[in-house]
């Protein structure tokens, strides 16, 4: 069957520049009386050197998706129930804990929200940045120090030789977040997960940090997953966006496409509900209701109780994936029925 073979070949050539591919990931929390479906069938991919956004509100499952990628879901309580996470040619979910350690902090790094708690107050900054170097690159002494200095320089920390010997409390919030980034980047990971890294930073400091990450990304070709609820950051930093709601990706597309022509009513509502500088609106578009309680996600499409265009069908069945060309897709009966 030549057609099948051709298809196979095409897929493989495309696979080559895919760094991370997540297929049908499900991560549930098991509680005494309920199962919380924090991540409920998430699929997306990240190409080499690409910046991908995971956007959603609290409880949408964006952070839990990232922790699942690192296989760091909270224990006990949460479990990855189903799915595949392909990093290049390896399924991370089939690895032993030992093998996984070689990925974590080496080939994939994470920068978390709070620089306050990501650094240990009793070790110097130099020691902490050197940790992944010792652990993964097996470098010590002069060699390790040189690498630490390089990465502190890379994140533009002034006078790194001096700062090396200082403790986290001697750094400002913005500088601390740079140290965390430096820690993640010393081993030159292929994938950087940025989990709301700028929420605790001031606007001007946030701008500096965003610029820095973008430059590092361009220089090193690292892929980045941005987890955020800030649509501004996504617009500025990402090539692709995945919009999450109640544990699923409801829409996925290239940034320009999504911001210009959002297909899912939730995406559209999110974009309309944020005040936009320069465009004065009498009234902001208002999404009614509350984000769903993960213990009792509505039947059908979880967004229907808040959706202005909800139909009867939406209450009964979760809409299938409608391809919008290329990798882009949406889960909405409106688009599905429309075509």
């Amino acid at each position, binding site marked *: 069957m030549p057609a099948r073979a051709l298809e196979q070949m095409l897929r493989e050539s495309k696979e080559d520049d895919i760094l991370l591919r997540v297929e049908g990931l499900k991560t549930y929390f098991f509680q005494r009386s309920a199962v919380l479906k924090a991540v409920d069938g998430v699929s997306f991919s990240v190409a080499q050197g690409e910046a991908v956004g995971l956007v959603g*509100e*609290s409880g949408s499952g964006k952070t839990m998706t990232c922790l699942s990628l690192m296989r760091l879901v909270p224990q006990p309580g949460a479990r990855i129930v189903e799915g595949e996470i392909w990093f290049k040619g390896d399924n991370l979910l089939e690895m032993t804990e030992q093998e996984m350690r070689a990925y974590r902090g080496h080939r994939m790094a994470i920068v978390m929200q709070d620089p306050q708690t990501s650094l240990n107050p009793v070790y110097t900054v130099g020691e902490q940045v050197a940790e992944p170097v010792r652990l993964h690159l097996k470098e010590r002494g002069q060699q390790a120090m040189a690498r630490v200095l390089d990465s502190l320089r890379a994140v533009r920390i002034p006078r790194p030789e001096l700062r090396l010997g200082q403790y986290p409390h001697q750094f*400002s*919030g*913005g*500088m601390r977040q740079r140290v965390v980034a430096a820690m993640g980047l010393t081993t030159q990971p292929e994938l950087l997960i940025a989990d709301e890294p700028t929420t605790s930073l*001031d*606007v*001007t*400091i*946030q*701008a*500096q940090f*965003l*610029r820095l990450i973008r430059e590092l990304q361009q220089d090193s070709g690292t892929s980045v997953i941005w987890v955020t*609820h*800030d*649509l*501004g*950051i*996504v*617009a*500025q*930093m990402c090539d692709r966006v995945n919009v999450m709601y109640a544990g699923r990706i409801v829409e996925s597309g290239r*940034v*320009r496409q999504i*911001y210009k022509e959002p297909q899912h009513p939730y995406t559209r*509502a*999110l*974009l309309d*509900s*944020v*005040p*936009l*500088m*320069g465009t*004065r*609106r009498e*009234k*902001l*578009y*208002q*999404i*009614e209701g*509350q*984000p769903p309680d993960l213990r009792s996600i509505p039947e059908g499409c979880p967004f229907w109780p*808040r959706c202005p265009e909800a139909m009867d069908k939406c209450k009964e069945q979760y809409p299938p994936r409608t391809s919008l060309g290329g990798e882009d897709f949406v889960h909405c009966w409106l688009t599905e029925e429309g075509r």
Partner: protein
Amino acid sequence: MANRLLEVEGLAKHFRGGGNWLSSGGDSIRAVDGVSFSVEEGETFALVGESGCGKTTVAKMILLLERPTRGAISFQGKDVSSFRGGSLREYKRLVQAVFQDPYSSLNPRMQVLDIIGEPLRVHQGMRGRDLRMRVGELLENVGLNPVTASFFPHQFSGGQRQRIAIARALALRPRLIVLDEPVSGLDVSIRAQILNLLVDLQRELGLSYLLISHDLAIVEHMSHRVGVMYVGKMVELATRDEFYGNTLHPYSNALLASVPQPDPDVPMGTTIGGEVASPINPPSGCRFHTRCPIYLETNMCREVEPEWREILSEHLTACHKVEPAVV
């Protein structure tokens, strides 16, 4: 010109750092260092700035939670520090607040009826049926079902809690509500609900807002006039249209340029380097000179504190580089 409701003149707050009442402590922290502005009847005045700029301390002084080191606050033309007894009670009735964190601002041990009813009990001795009627009415005003009066705070989501906090602030029919980052603790989809509610309430009840925020997009949406603070000082004050259309101070420009726009076709502006200066040892001269992109190499910016002056009508700033267009 509208009626002036609140006026703040040369307000300053210095904290003594370190030490206690036995040892006389270290350096003083000049959290707020001479700030003047006013809030007119029915308008929203926004105080903008980064952490440590002193905007929250200004709010606390207006709410009488901190005592000013210097300067005066006057309300409806009368000096607030002279208020005693009845006039003080009246001030506390007319000025209310909504804070950022809806989880911390409601007592977890109280039912909603008691939370919203507290100001009514304290000021009007309201009880029984009257109290329940009024609380029910207030809950409806903020879009909640009156039957929720018997619930406890943990039974609500963040947005609903913020509505309860707003209902409590409205209970005494105040004139001024201090909004300290009222939506930054909320989910994106809930923010619009709360912002719209605040705008509607202002229109219906003729309220004045003092909005404390770091989010320039929200400030543009909500406010009539804007004041920008940097390390305890006001650096620019203008009407909203003036501020967003004709920004004068380099710090205000940097703030505006730093906001990532939710539009992939609007690239991020040029931001500034450096860290927010510390109020413990603020830089000499113009406090922004250490980060200023248009900093004069003469000693002027470093040594001389720029004068707070009106550059255009109702547009004030403190910068050596900006020349007054009208006098």
